[in-house]
């Protein structure tokens, strides 16, 4: 008795297997990113829940937070938004102006790398956070694997911000995005997703970033005048 492999696959419960030429369909819909162009390219139509998401950036200030702002704004009011080991001070006036609920913000500044990983796992596993954003400048693959497992067992979206060079290394994350600045926008290269690779980078205009004032453009300064 023989059945075709495709028929066998089709008989499996949804979410277990995804054909490589199509986007996976996770059991649970993702959290809308706030950018329709990006939602269309993500399995589940948004940031996946219960998953490790890697954001690979080379420099701060290219709009990496603006990309997350819609998800942070939409976070559930009874859970925390945890920021773990941010590289600089999150600036309260700007966050408040962007509509992030500061009374739900949990800024965690653990002292050493082991405690940072512990804190991330606690934040993800507790079920008390809707979004966890962690900055890990030099994370080992084993540590990321543990974080991915912790995230899978929860309903929390775990964003890990890593240096752009890490794009060359393998990672257990289920979604990896490389962020690069483009003219007045953010270029998103989907390094890894549950679906076919995307040949060209997405270009997302970020409406919340300050744009050039007409009339005062193009004055150059070169260091100390």
């Amino acid at each position, binding site marked *: 008795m023989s059945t075709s492999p495709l028929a066998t696959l089709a008989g499996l419960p949804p979410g277990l297997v995804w054909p490589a030429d199509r986007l996976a369909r996770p059991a649970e819909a993702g959290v809308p990113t706030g950018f329709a162009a990006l939602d269309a390219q993500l399995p589940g139509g948004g940031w996946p829940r219960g998953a490790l998401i890697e954001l690979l950036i080379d420099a701060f*200030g290219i709009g990496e937070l603006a990309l997350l702002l819609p998800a942070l704004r939409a976070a559930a009011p009874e859970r925390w938004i945890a920021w773990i080991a941010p590289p600089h001070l999150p600036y309260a006036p700007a966050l408040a102006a962007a509509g992030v609920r500061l009374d739900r913000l949990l800024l965690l500044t653990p002292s050493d790398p082991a405690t940072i990983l512990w804190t991330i796992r606690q934040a993800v596993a507790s079920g008390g956070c809707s979004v966890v954003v962690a900055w890990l400048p030099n994370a080992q693959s084993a540590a990321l694997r543990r974080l991915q497992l912790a995230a899978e067992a929860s309903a929390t979206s775990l964003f890990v911000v890593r240096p752009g060079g890490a794009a060359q290394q393998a990672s257990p994350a289920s979604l990896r995005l490389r962020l690069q600045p483009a003219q007045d926008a953010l270029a998103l290269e989907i390094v890894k997703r549950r679906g076919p690779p995307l040949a060209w980078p997405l270009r997302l205009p970020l409406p919340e970033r300050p744009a050039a004032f007409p009339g005062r453009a193009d004055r150059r300064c070169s260091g100390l005048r």
Partner: protein
Amino acid sequence: MLWFALILPDLPLQVFTRGVEDAGLLAVVEPQPRATIVIATAAARVRGVELRQGVAGALAVVPELALRERDPALEAATLAELATWAGRFTPCVSLDPPDAVLLEASASLRLFGGIDALAQRIADAALPLGLTTTLAAAPTPLAARWFARARPGTLVRPSDGWARALDALPIELLADGAPVPPATLELLRGVGVRRIGELARLPRDGLARRDASVVTDTVARARGHDPDPRPRFVPAERFASRLVLPASVTHTEPLRFAAGRLFSNLAAWLALRQAGLDCCRLHLEHDCAPATVVEIITGRPQRDAARFVQLACEHLAALTLPAPVEALRLTADAPVALPACTPDLFGGENDAAREAAIRLLDRLRARLGIDAVHTVLPVADHRPERAWRPAAPGTRPAPHPATLGPRPLWLMQPPRPLGAARTLTLLSGPERIESGWWDGDDVHRDYYVAHTAEGALWWVFERLDPPGGWYVHGFFG
């Protein structure tokens, strides 16, 4: 009336051993009139230590036997603790020293579903205390105590002729909880009386002539013919519980178990007053150093022992002990009224999320320290470095005016001078900020949004007073 008697037969030993899972070879010594073993752990008895044995003899049999001198004050404190704990079953609790607690439970029987169910419940609830208890119930306190001593588990219901159940008990019990002197017991044994029932055949006046009327009085109280009022136990206003460790402990791991015992006491004390706590202190007592105090703070009033234990463990894990720990003490004051929790019919998921969020906050604070867990709030100040402040998570920001110019999501603290080699394109500005002349921290700056060669947006300023100098103060993340 229905009295439950709860007897702690191993109290002198368990005041020392209840803080550890396995006490090993330990015996408690009564120093007067001569040093004898009062009680020993099962392990010690298996090795041949006998009760009422001299200390020298016991040490000859088991040289590595650890000895502790009997501590009546600690026993009394532990008994009071048990009485506090028993307050969850009935408000009428009496101490019956040296080793019993009496509960008058006739009013609570219906609530707990009858005498058998209540007895089971008391026995189950006593397990986490780390104290061996024997339990019996009878219509008078003295009878309950005797049954608990001689026939543990007996539950005598009040009915006509219940007192006949006392007849079969040995007369030695008369000295238990009643002022019957040993000489009188000797006298009774001399005339051939073995059981309490046989006392009824003796002439009352004959006993009275031989100074033994106390026997008839005692039996009359036990049978309920005479009244036997008992003072009611009043729990302490402030919680303080101390647990002595059988041997000094040099690392924090074994302390968790002992702390668990203390926290179940605390939970009982809180349940009795329908109260919760948001702060308590665990003192680790050392022999030759001041006690290490661990302050346990919860996000909101609690009385769940497991939750306190979890937080205490986080603190203990991060602790380095300055000296070996000899005893643990838990103190708490200012309980907050906390109504008994009623499960929510609707909205259970949100409550669970809220609960999980508070639990996470408690854990993180315990492990990372209060300073590493916070949020940021805007402050009405024009100077960017003063326009924010750290705050406890969950603090709502005050409504603030909309910011005037663009503000970055990342602030560089403190501003960093721009390197000479960097080329920036100024996109917008200047936004002049001059403020703070009144507190000596005045700034005179022109702020710009700048575009770096790598494509990032920076918030830079030019210092105006003293003039010159470009700084980067933030990133538009």
